[in-house]
């Protein structure tokens, strides 16, 4: 394809960290521009630390900075924060949200969109975001639709969707991926600490798992 552009649409600042940041880095490394639309600032995050390092009011500011840092690490040139509120995406008018995404698709003409698989992505914001993206792409004539690679992690996703059909080995950008994960410090510091504690002898296995990113291509 002559024109390549990846559009990532997620509701929360760290949604890309563990499952998608390597794929993003591999694209920007190839020179493919990546636009990241992040619907909320994860205002409702619960991890405040012990002792607390954040409050309900300071958390969005912290997470916005972290997202900007992660975007820098991944060489994302176009980061768009839409200012919706965490945990309210499913209550927005789905038509309006889909229309807003459609505008971005019209503007960028992405060759690939990455989002959540509606129905299989657990958090109501994930489901509503994925549904809005699918709705937007469905408006396009079939031959104009970009590929949509979806992230799914519900307990029944393998049972219902089968094995993921897109597997990206991101080991060539694993340092960048780790940096991007660490950039979301307020969300990932305790996870990294827990992983290090639990997996002292299994670091290679954890890395191997981190170096594999998987997606289900949405079938319209």
């Amino acid at each position: 394809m002559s024109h390549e552009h990846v559009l990532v649409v997620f509701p929360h600042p760290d949604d890309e960290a563990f499952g998608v940041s390597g794929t993003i880095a591999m694209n920007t490394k190839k020179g493919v521009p990546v636009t990241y639309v992040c619907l909320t600032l994860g205002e409702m995050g619960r991890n405040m630390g012990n002792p607390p390092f954040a409050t309900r009011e300071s958390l969005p500011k912290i997470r916005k900075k972290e997202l900007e840092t992660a975007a820098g690490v991944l060489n994302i040139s176009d980061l768009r924060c839409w200012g919706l509120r965490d945990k309210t995406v499913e209550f927005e008018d789905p038509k309006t949200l889909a229309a807003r995404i459609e505008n971005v698709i019209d503007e960028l003409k992405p060759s690939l969109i990455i989002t959540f698989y509606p129905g299989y992505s657990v958090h109501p914001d994930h489901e509503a975001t994925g549904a809005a993206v699918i709705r937007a792409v469905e408006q396009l004539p079939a031959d104009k639709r970009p590929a949509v690679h979806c992230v799914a992690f519900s307990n029944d996703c393998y049972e219902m969707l089968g094995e993921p059909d897109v597997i990206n080995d991101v080991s060539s950008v694993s340092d960048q991926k780790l940096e991007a994960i660490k950039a979301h410090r307020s969300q990932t510091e305790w996870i990294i600490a827990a992983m290090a504690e639990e997996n002292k002898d299994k670091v290679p296995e954890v890395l191997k798992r981190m170096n594999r990113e998987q997606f289900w291509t949405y079938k319209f």
Partner: protein
Amino acid sequence: MQPITPETVQNEIDKFLNQDVYLHLETTNGAYASHFNQSFFSVGAYIRNAKINFERGVITGEKSPYRAGLKINIGWVYAEGLTHWEVNEDGQLLLAGHDAEGKLAVALQLSPHPFE
């Protein structure tokens, strides 16, 4: 935020008495509770920028976690499980309850102007 000392927090609550103030009240067990444990009954409630005016406000409890109640002219606001407090740079009184892992489970906040 600091661990709650009831006398100090009582003082701060009193500064909001008998005037229109904005309330943030929230309880949450996280959006993933039922994902990790399917028998878990996940609940939460959230209200942001309700305008209230209270004539009596009390923080109470023998030790942390504490409880706070606000008596408004035609009803009540209360929260339990409060462990930490802060008055931030916007003059907002933030009360929160954090579990042992530092995760927020409840928040009761008052502001002289709408929350952002």
